[in-house]
């Protein structure tokens, strides 16, 4: 066995992206919001967009996202991030405008705003974090909660006869003419995380090229409200969420393929 020798020059192989602040977050241990933040920040860095990106934060666990990104940012009312982003983008069409929204924000109270932003082909990019539950308010049922899923507001499990089936937002928004790129990825293992990063890069490139609305849905974990350990939570995504929310590209406009 050879003895390890120190390299002559240390190489940095991993560091905080410039688009992220050097700060603590309010996210729970094991939550994948941190991964999602990092992927978005890396993508912004790699495309050199930091100095012209404006982030619109949601209401939900990511309510303080503007504190974690080193970007100009603003804070929308619950569900209204796509409308607020529309105002920013229309006022400054040459900037990159990103909303970061959870499932309660995007699929419940903000269903109207996201649908119409996509319908208009609004040239914004949406990072949609789907963890099938309301996190910030303490684990209530979301429109994306799974059939039978126990939450604090569906204590006996989601009864689809009473509260409907999970809403598949990527499939829905892909139907909009204005959507240029809509994809669903998952953050439950490294291979899928790498694919998620590529999708976010594509979404930003779509916006840069002015091709239309772009969204990447990220299946995420909520160990705290799912009442699982972080590793169990990742497994739960794979076992329970993937069958309901198949991964894949739901809309890739022809022009996007040429990017």
């Amino acid at each position: 066995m050879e003895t390890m020798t120190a390299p002559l020059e240390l190489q940095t192989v991993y560091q905080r992206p410039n688009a992220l602040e050097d700060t603590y977050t309010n996210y729970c241990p094991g939550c994948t919001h941190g991964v999602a933040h990092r992927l978005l920040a890396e993508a912004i860095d790699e495309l050199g967009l930091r100095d012209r990106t404006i982030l619109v934060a949601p209401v939900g666990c990511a309510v303080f996202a503007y504190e974690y990104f080193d970007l100009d940012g603003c804070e929308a009312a619950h569900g209204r991030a796509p409308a607020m982003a529309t105002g920013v983008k229309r006022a400054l069409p040459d900037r990159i405008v990103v909303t970061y929204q959870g499932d309660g924000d995007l699929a419940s109270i903000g269903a109207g705003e996201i649908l119409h932003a996509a319908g208009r082909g609004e040239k914004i990019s949406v990072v949609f974090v789907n963890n099938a539950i309301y996190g910030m308010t303490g684990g209530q049922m979301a429109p994306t909660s799974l059939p039978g899923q126990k939450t604090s507001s569906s204590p006996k499990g989601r009864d689809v006869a009473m509260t409907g089936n999970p809403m598949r937002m990527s499939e829905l928004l892909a139907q909009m003419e204005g959507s240029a790129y809509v994809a669903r990825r998952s953050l439950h293992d490294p291979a899928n995380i790498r694919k998620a990063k590529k999708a976010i890069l594509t979404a930003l490139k779509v916006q840069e090229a002015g091709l239309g609305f772009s969204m990447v849905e990220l299946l995420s974990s909520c160990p705290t409200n799912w009442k699982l350990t972080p590793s169990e939570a990742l497994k739960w995504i794979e076992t329970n969420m993937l069958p309901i929310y198949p991964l894949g590209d739901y809309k890739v406009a022809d022009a996007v393929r040429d990017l």
Partner: protein
Amino acid sequence: MARELLKGNVAIAEAALRAGVEAYFGYPITPQTELLEHLALRMPELGRVFLQAESEIAAINMVYGSACTGTRTMTSSSGPGISLMQEGMSYIAGSEVPAVIVDVMRGGPGLGNILPSQGDYFQVTRSAGHGDYHPIVLAPASVQEAIDFTMLAFDLAEKYRHLVIVAADGMIGQMMEPAELPPMRPLPTKRPDWALTGADERPKRVISSIYMSAEAAERFNLKVQARLKEIRRNEQRSTEYETDDARLLVVGYGSAGRIAHSAVVAAREKGLKVGLFRPQTLYPFPEASLSKIISRIQGCLVVEMNAGQMIEDVQLVAAGQVPVRFYGRMGGVVPVPEEVLAAIEQAYDSMSELSLAAPA
């Protein structure tokens, strides 16, 4: 610029354009729709932003977003839409970004009807969204004032980084009257130093209405209150007619104010010592000028196109010094000068009885 016969809604839209509005977001609702339609035509001609939103909720949040970029921005609506916008209005106030909203009031509550009303007085002066603040509220009584106040609204919004509401009504919006438009103002060439533009060679900027700790939220509230105090000191506006020797003061704003003016003219022809006080700002309420007049009159008659809302502000100023009576019509009924005159005569008579009965 020559006087033209202009429809109120179109005049407001054109005035906004000349004030340099760069982005308009709105949703159609009668009786303000011509305002939106005029900007749909004119904004693209000038290379500016016009977008018909999917709802008033979206419209106000689009305004919020574009205001965050330091863009001169506005929306317009009527009662039902203004109700939906209250959430966004509160966020705008909580974020200290300037924005202008035009409310062309109609009969309510509920869907009500599309006829002229002043039923939104409380809504715009008191409860324009949750939290502790008031927007600045301007009340035009003619097409010319609608133009002038729209221009002023943008100035005040930017001066105070505050929400300004132009509270017109269906009558002002729908009528045509000769008026003069101001020349086109140049657009701002520089964005303000708080605007979101991308953190390019400067530290990042954040616009938010969150103040998590009680102390921070109170500090922000104190700042808002200090600004409102300054607004109350600087921005009270009103007009008076024949108040010098008046014994009875009629108080009315907007359409009710101009109708009351005709009634006061008729009362003077009958020899009654009646004057008119017409608030042009509803917030700040012109209490300084009103208070001076109240000290030398014997009674007040408030005239509104609602069940009596501004009367509370008049009563606060009168503070029991003189009786305050009310005449109002609701639900879209526009009072004619003759019926206001009858109310004046009645108030005048009862006032004389009072003063006769008063001890020497």
